[in-house]
């Protein structure tokens, strides 16, 4: 979607126009009442489900959830996946060429926030003829977008599904993000964000950033179960090469990520996370911030998620209760830490199926 109406960002910067790439699954019904927006987290994209004919390996990041007969059933719902503004999968972002120039934005792309993403998504909703979403759903940073939808456009969202999320980051969360950012910024190939002009990519920084991130996505117990102290070579090598399997795993994840993700986008996404705090303008009082919401809420957390622990979701739940809003809250036993929201845990998916099944379209 090409949007030619300028967008003023929360930072005060102004985008003259922008492009968003999106995918849809299922069919918008005659009443336009069955549309569901899926919001992605840090590294996600518009490619939510299925695979492309010419690229069978590239399966959508929430394919276990979205599809015919799946919990988010595309026979019932018209599902929309979008790459957020500032992303690196085709939407306008740091990799885009600046209007009236042949150079990429790079570090000059303005910082966009969760609020800006939602504002841009609303333009996409207009474009698709969706006046009101049946639901907006997301995990982690995606859950923040679902929450923000209920605040910025209370009348355009019937159900907000906020999974493994938080109403704002803790100091510890921000600290991890800052380590990730410093890893990228201090990479000699970063060039102040203008690496594209130098024909390089700060892969070392990106790799480190992703490694740190991955530690926070997994639970201690799951790491112990998956890797433990397993040795790569069956013995200690007394070197700084890979000894333990967990090292190999983190390096693999880091390398993979550094091969395709844009560093400026990563920096910006982590800042969007840091800045998100709907209660900020209300003296830190979340209940006051949520007073505007009208949607019904599905909030879920995972017991082993220490990045966005259950207590963070409960903050949202009790702020909703204060406002007498309808909410379902589930605390799911799943061993996989923060990443649980991406898995097809049987109980988790049964909850989603039950909730989505009751949404009238």
């Amino acid at each position, binding site marked *: 979607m090409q949007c030619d109406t300028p967008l003023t960002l929360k930072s005060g910067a102004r985008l003259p126009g922008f492009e968003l790439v999106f995918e849809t699954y299922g069919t918008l019904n005659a009443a336009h009442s069955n549309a569901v927006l899926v919001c992605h987290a840090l590294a996600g994209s518009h490619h939510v489900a299925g695979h492309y004919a010419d690229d069978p390996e590239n399966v959508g990041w929430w394919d276990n959830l979205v599809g015919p007969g799946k919990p988010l059933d595309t026979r019932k719902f018209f599902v929309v996946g979008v790459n957020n503004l500032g992303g690196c999968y085709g939407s306008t972002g740091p990799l885009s060429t600046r209007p009236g120039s042949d150079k990429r934005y790079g570090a000059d792309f303005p910082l966009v926030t969760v609020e800006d993403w939602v504002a841009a998504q609303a333009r996409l909703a207009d474009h698709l003829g969706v006046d009101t979403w049946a639901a907006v759903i997301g995990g982690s940073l995606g859950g923040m977008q679902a929450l923000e939808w209920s605040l910025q456009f209370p009348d355009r969202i019937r159900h907000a599904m906020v999974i493994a999320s938080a109403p704002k980051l803790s100091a510890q969360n921000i600290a991890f993000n800052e380590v990730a950012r410093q890893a990228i910024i201090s990479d000699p190939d970063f060039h102040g964000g203008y690496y594209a002009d130098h024909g390089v990519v700060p892969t070392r920084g990106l790799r480190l950033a992703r490694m740190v991130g991955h530690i926070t996505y997994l639970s201690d117990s799951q790491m112990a179960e998956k890797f433990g102290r397993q040795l790569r070579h069956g013995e200690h090598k007394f070197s700084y090469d890979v000894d333990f399997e967990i090292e190999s795993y983190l390096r693999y994840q880091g390398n993979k990520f550094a091969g395709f993700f844009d560093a400026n986008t990563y920096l910006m996404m982590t800042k969007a996370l840091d800045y998100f705090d709907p209660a900020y303008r209300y003296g830190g009082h979340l209940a006051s911030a949520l007073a505007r919401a009208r949607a019904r809420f599905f909030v879920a957390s995972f017991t082993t998620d220490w990045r966005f622990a259950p207590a963070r979701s*409960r903050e949202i*739940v*009790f702020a909703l*209760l*204060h406002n*007498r809003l*309808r*909410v*379902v*809250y*589930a*605390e*799911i*036993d799943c061993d996989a830490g923060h990443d649980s929201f991406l898995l097809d845990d049987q*109980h988790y998916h*049964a*909850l989603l199926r*039950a*909730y989505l*099944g*009751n949404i009238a379209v």
Partner: protein
Amino acid sequence: MTEYERRARAEQRERFDFAVIANWLSPGERVLDLGCGDGRLLRYLGETRDVTGYGVEIDHDSVLGCIRNGVDVIQMNIESGLQGFEDNSFDHVVISQALQTMHTTERILTEMLRVAAEAVVSFPNFAYRANRAAIADGHMPVSEDLPYDWFDTPNVRFFTIVDFEDLCARLEIEVRERLAFDEAGKEVADDPNLNGSLAFYRLGRKP
């Protein structure tokens, strides 16, 4: 009794229990139901009394049941209290045949009357005649209102009408109304601690 008859009887009994509780609520109230199971009481109260509210449950399958029933549920452990729920934020807090499954009886009762001005409690009376007879006969009672074998019961607190009222007195909780029913569902007036199988209370804070 056939399985069908047994189920029909249980459903009838349940509707009867629900009706007792519904009677004590005003239409359109805001209710919190502790240990709400699959949310059928709240659904019933919504349908018959236009009551809105939330259930609180710890059991995963029950939470799923609530969602299927379209009942708003909050999954949390209330043994340590009702943290997060604001003072006087509900018209009634109900605990229907679940108090006996929780350890921290005193805390829960106190918390109920923090969150609402009035609480509704129902529980099986351990001193009911048939239960006494079972004990006298050397066995833990299994009855209509205590339907579990001792080795798989979810109940962890076994108490009587008299015990409960003693505790209320100690906690300065006012008993505003009490109803007791025998196993046939008939209201009991005479010696409820002996003749009542199931007890219902409307409780408030002492003025």
